[in-house]
């Protein structure tokens, strides 16, 4: 009994002292570094989606370095505070609070995954700290409040883009749609594709559904073949898309397939192989884009990291650049004023195209169409909204 009383006491003392040691973060830091502007970033640097987080962080860091090389913003250098959320649910809420309350950042950049952006968004909104997500395409993210922005387009937009492209550039009349009925992403793309394609005078020849995880698509593809379309829209993810392409060729379907950014993966071609040749998909950016902004970015990125930047890196870069531009316009780092400047962003020349922030704080911008040629993704054209 005596021992236990002692243990309770020591446990209590330990707990309280740990708690207090946590609270007493030296406040000296804030004024010692008041000549810099602190920008927070949260990214999945480790865990299951580490490749996304590391790419977007490299892009963001490059942007901050570029800005600082050009004398920073408002006469101050930018300081990037990055925290890893381990690709884990529950972590973003903690790290974003840390960035805001302990580090005192004036804005937050992140995250790629929509689910983690959704966790951080209400906290940024509550603290009136502008947050810019580089690549969360779920429409709900920016619905969290008027401080939440993104620099990528949202899911439905790609459907419209592909409708324009297939109708106007490929001159298709009659297309079939093969949708993943289990995925909101796929359903959203299919809906907006059909509306856009019909509005442009095209016809939907057939509609078929599959479920992600399916391996055999011969029933759906046979039905599509019977409708004799001149193209098939497959707004799915790369695993199923590769198999669909293979099985379509086996059934003797020779018309092109096309889809959205769910196709973009280094695993697509190994699955689909030669069956994917001449197919198209839309995405955020291509390093082969000949515009000087993209080529400049690719050159700088290669010099710093010795690798070719992917879409996440480009979007990370743009998220930091658009924030800096808004701070310059606002003339201050005050949350509400930066928010107003961000909301008023028009035709911002980013690496991923000209960005205009719309009334729902989403980026309205061009999409890039890629094709598959000799097993490589090749730039075709940029489609304006």
């Amino acid at each position: 009994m005596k021992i236990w009383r002692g243990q309770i006491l020591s446990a209590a003392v330990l707990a309280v002292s740990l708690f207090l040691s946590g609270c007493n973060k030296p406040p000296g830091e804030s004024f010692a570094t008041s000549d810099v502007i602190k920008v927070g970033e949260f990214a999945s640097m480790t865990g299951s989606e580490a490749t996304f987080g590391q790419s977007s962080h490299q892009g963001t860091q490059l942007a901050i370095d570029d800005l600082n090389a050009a004398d920073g913003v408002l006469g101050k250098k930018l300081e990037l505070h990055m925290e890893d959320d381990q690709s884990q649910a529950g972590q973003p809420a903690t790290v974003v609070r840390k960035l805001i309350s302990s580090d005192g950042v004036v804005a937050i950049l992140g995250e790629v995954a929509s689910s983690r952006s959704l966790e951080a968004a209400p906290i940024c909104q509550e603290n009136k700290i502008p947050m810019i997500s580089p690549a969360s395409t779920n429409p709900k993210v920016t619905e969290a409040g008027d401080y939440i922005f993104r620099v990528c387009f949202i899911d439905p937009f790609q459907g419209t883009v592909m409708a324009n492209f297939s109708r106007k550039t490929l001159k298709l009349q009659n297309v079939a749609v093969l949708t993943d009925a289990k995925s909101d992403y796929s359903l959203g793309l299919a809906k907006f594709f059909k509306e856009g394609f019909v509005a442009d005078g095209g016809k939907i020849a057939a509609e078929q559904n599959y479920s992600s995880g399916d391996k055999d698509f011969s029933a759906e593809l046979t039905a599509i073949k019977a409708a004799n379309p001149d193209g098939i829209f497959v707004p799915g993810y790369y695993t199923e898309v590769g198999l669909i392409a293979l099985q379509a060729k086996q059934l003797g379907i020779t018309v092109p397939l096309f889809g959205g950014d769910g196709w973009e993966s280094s695993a697509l071609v190994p699955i689909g192989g030669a069956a994917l040749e001449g197919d198209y998909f839309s995405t955020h950016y291509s390093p082969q884009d000949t515009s000087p902004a993209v080529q400049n970015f690719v050159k700088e990125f290669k010099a710093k990291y010795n690798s070719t930047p992917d879409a996440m890196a480009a979007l990370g870069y743009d998220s930091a650049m658009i924030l800096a531009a808004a701070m310059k316009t606002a003339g201050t780092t005050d949350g509400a004023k930066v928010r107003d400047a961000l909301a008023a962003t028009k035709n911002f020349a980013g690496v991923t195209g000209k960005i205009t922030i719309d009334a729902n704080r989403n980026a309205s911008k061009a999409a890039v169409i890629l094709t598959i040629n000799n097993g490589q993704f090749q730039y075709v054209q940029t489609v304006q909204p």
Partner: protein
Amino acid sequence: MNIRHAKTFFLGALVLCFLVSLFANQINSYWLFISYDIGINIILAVSLNLINGYTGQFSLGHAGFMAVGAYTAAAITNQFGELNPYLSIAVFLGALLAGGLLAAVAGLLVGIPTLRLRGDYLAIVTLGFGEIIRVVFQNMQSVGGARGLSVMHGWTNFFWAFGFAAVTVYVVTALVHSTYGRGFIAVRDDEVAASAMGISTTKYKVTAFVVGAFFAGIAGGLYAHSKQFITPGGFNFMQSIAIVVMVILGGMGNTIGVIIAAILLTLLPEGLRAIADIEHIPGIVTAHPFVWVSDTRMIIYSLLLIILMLTRPQGLFSLRKSLSK
């Protein structure tokens, strides 16, 4: 901790958490938020300790019960939270209890058919059960499916988190130290002998599961209302393991040890973040001397766990072998 101390502890904890919650707005919101995590992890670890520690059943499905509580409570407050601002406390409390009860029902459902199993077999079944719950939520479109569910009200605060932690500690301690509760320890120490003495081992195991699942459900509800966004991915196998680690590190069947382990393991990763942020050491002038910690944080964390397990296999804080006296 015997029952008399448990009562003192319980009352003391309630008063303390009420007092601290009065000063909550003075505390840095980041550390305040971590304190909610601490409270929630105490509930999870202490309730799992009833199953794994006192009753000696190796469960790997605690995150599944947590998910049931989180989704139930979140769905209720999202639906009824706006009714009347004066009723919000009642709605929140009701939602938490409903989440706990539903999780307890889940514990009963998994308990009855499977608790005749022992050891590794039971561990695998509970693991499978936790995954089933996660996949069910992943495919349940009414609560957002794989895209997750936004929780509108961030109602979890210091008082609720630590109030429920105190209740959990009290109930588990009181239960284990009651005449009835000696059965849990008998089942752990020697199941055959306990059974020979007329103890219904299955009934004890199911009871432990139901009570443990109830508090895991409460913790899930608190978690949902502190993070304000839940996805099925957050209640995966790794979350179950994290709770098991707290129990093992604290010493199986040692409530105080488990509480301290829950506190330490929640603070450790955040403490490493704080170390990585140190800008310079007075005297030794280097900018950011520990910045490498931010990249190797999780490796350091894992290494510390391995070292602790090698040096203290009986648990960090167990002065005596167990609490069975």
